[in-house]
């Protein structure tokens, strides 16, 4: 046989042989693989992992940092198929109760019972959102709610004052008063997507008395309250919102507020730390208030990025040890001392807000974040009871698709391509199909 043919065959054989080589783990030591999102706080954790490894000889932690969409796809396929590629996963508050109920995650309740960890220090609404039937399936790394952020200079110039707990009517009146050709009164997300437009809009719907589903999983998308809330949102954007709202989400509104193109913004509380950053043009000029309300006492949403241990990991003991370290009080001290107090992960532990250095570094936004996050109720955020735990989302697998489809319809209404009634009538049919799957 010709040598070249032999060489080609050899390449094929080597490639196929390589396939059957099973990856060997180094003996003795445990290497934990942690899948996480590319957020600053997670990267801080990666930069501090050496402290954990030094205190726990024999355990190494390998970070796999991914973009949010990639993380969701990679972790969902891995955990749902019990593939075991990851020992620790970073997942959102939306996934935890569903995956916990499916038996995909380790029940952490017994492991968190020790006094030193102080599980009772975790903000109660956050803990509730991560538990199913009294079992806690994840620990919060950091959390956020939604608040109203406004440029005091712009509002003061027009003689507008806002209370600490404003109503939507007050906010709408203020937005209209400060609205001008140069500066829009308020920025609200209009980009279609369950995590974009519907994050703030669902909280507006809830405080107007609406909900996605009632206790029987009957959809309520075209109910009078839901319709009233969406109409209010659309009218406010038309009267005093940013131009072309359907292309605006978190980042666009953040830039608009920083550059003085809008006077107010209702969005995630984590934005406050960016508005108060040293390089922010509006640092020290901002005011913060609770999420605006109508019929409820609070209307803020609740989100947390959490660490969980897949049920089938081979390294459960080491994995639990790491996630307890990364969400402990000591870790918050470590971040503060090594990286800076303003970088301490917010919205997870009550005690964080008692650290003097943190209180000083985050004076502008820490008190309001704690107030709102302690006050929201993920079990019943609206006027009526709901059959799931969660605020700005419905904790069922179908919601991503339902939310995206209805968000597109509502975005069309905001852009004037259809009416609110037409959009919500179509949305009702979509939501009901998903609700039917959960009827008992």
């Amino acid at each position: 046989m010709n040598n070249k043919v032999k060489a080609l065959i050899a390449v094929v054989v080597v490639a196929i042989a390589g396939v059957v080589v099973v990856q060997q783990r180094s003996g003795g030591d445990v290497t934990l693989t942690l899948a996480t999102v590319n957020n600053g706080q997670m990267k801080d954790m990666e930069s501090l992992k050496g402290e954990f490894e030094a205190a726990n000889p024999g355990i190494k932690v390998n970070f796999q940092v991914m973009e949010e969409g990639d993380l969701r796809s990679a972790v969902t396929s891995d955990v749902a198929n019990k593939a075991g590629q990851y020992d620790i996963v970073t997942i959102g508050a939306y996934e935890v109760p569903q995956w916990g109920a499916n038996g995909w995650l380790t029940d952490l309740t017994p492991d968190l019972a020790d006094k030193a960890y102080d599980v009772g220090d975790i903000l109660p609404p956050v803990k509730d959102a991560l538990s199913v039937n009294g079992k806690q399936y994840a620990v919060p790394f950091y959390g956020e709610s939604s608040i109203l952020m406004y440029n005091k200079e712009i509002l003061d110039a027009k003689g507008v004052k806002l209370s600490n707990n404003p109503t939507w009517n007050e906010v709408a009146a203020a937005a209209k008063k400060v609205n001008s050709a140069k500066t829009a009164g308020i920025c609200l997300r209009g980009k279609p997507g369950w995590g974009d437009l519907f994050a703030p809009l669902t909280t507006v719907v809830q405080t107007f008395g609406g909900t996605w589903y009632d206790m029987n999983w009957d959809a309520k998308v075209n109910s009078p309250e839901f319709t009233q809330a969406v109409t209010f949102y659309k009218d406010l954007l038309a009267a005093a919102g940013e131009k072309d709202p359907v292309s605006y989400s978190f980042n666009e509104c953040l830039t608009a507020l920083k550059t003085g193109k809008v006077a107010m913004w209702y969005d995630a509380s984590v934005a406050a730390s960016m508005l108060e950053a040293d390089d922010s043009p509006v640092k020290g000029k901002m005011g913060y208030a609770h999420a605006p309300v109508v019929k409820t006492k609070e209307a803020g949403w609740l989100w947390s990025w959490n660490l969980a241990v897949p049920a089938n990991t081979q390294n459960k003991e080491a994995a639990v040890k790491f996630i307890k370290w990364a969400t402990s009080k000591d870790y918050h001290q470590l971040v503060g001392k090594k990286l800076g107090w303003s970088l301490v992960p917010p919205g997870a532990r009550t005690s964080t807000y008692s650290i003097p250095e943190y209180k000083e570094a985050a004076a502008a936004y820490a008190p309001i974040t704690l107030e709102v996050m302690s006050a929201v109720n993920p079990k019943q955020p609206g006027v009526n009871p709901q059959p799931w735990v969660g605020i700005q989302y419905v904790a069922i697998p179908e919601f991503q698709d339902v939310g995206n489809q209805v968000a597109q319809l509502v975005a069309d209404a905001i852009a004037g391509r259809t009416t609110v009634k037409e959009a919500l009538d179509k949305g009702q049919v979509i939501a009901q199909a998903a609700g039917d799957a959960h009827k008992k």
Partner: protein
Amino acid sequence: MRSTKARLITGMTWIIAVTYFFPVAWMFINSFKTENDAASLTPKFIFTPTLEGFSRLGERGMSNYLTNSLMASVVSTALVLALSIPAAYALSIRPIHKVQDALFFFISTRFMPAAASILPLFIIFKNLHVLDNIFALSLVYAAMNLPIAIWMMRSFLSEVPHEVIEASRIDGADFETELWSVVLPIVLPGIAAVALICFIFSWNEYFFSVLLTSANAKTTPPFLASFVDGRGQFLAVLSAASTVAALPVILAGWFAQKQLVRGLAMGAVK
């Protein structure tokens, strides 16, 4: 008039070329800036260059990801060439029955979007215990590139004059001699073109790498995305990483430029 038209065309060509090239050049420039310079709201053209971004790549272990990308690209490209040349041979120079049906079958394997095949692939990989295995990922890349390679190789082989092949057969050349000494030297530029395209496709592949690998076999493209940071201080290091990631493909294209142009033109002229 003619000269004005020619100047206009030349001008337009320059504008288009610069428009296409500018983002790449800007990425390259940013890779030598500090994070503050790179994130500056007013673009900075004059700055003190630094290698800070590149040094941070080493700290994040980029060489492992580059090695994985290289392994996956080389192994899959070698496999594709090893399989596509004989397949194309059987579809052009020594045609089998129903050539058109066979060609349609090959290309039909690309009709299904990758997203539709990922779950079955994931389960197969899991059951074979080859998740996070670079050789298994290489097989997927080879399968992904094989149809296009067969189609390209077939069009290149069809360009080989029959008279040359017949003459070699009359001179007593057997199949191996015909393939190695007559046909392949003629289509070498075409093989280079196929190899480079397969290499680029594998090098840049993102979707399968994200889902089928984790700690040991992750390739460069998903690693690049990990540099994006909500706090905004990531442009310089991301540009440095992207520059390093783009370099092998640019260099390969540069060196094989002449072969590539000849190769890609082969199938175009009948």
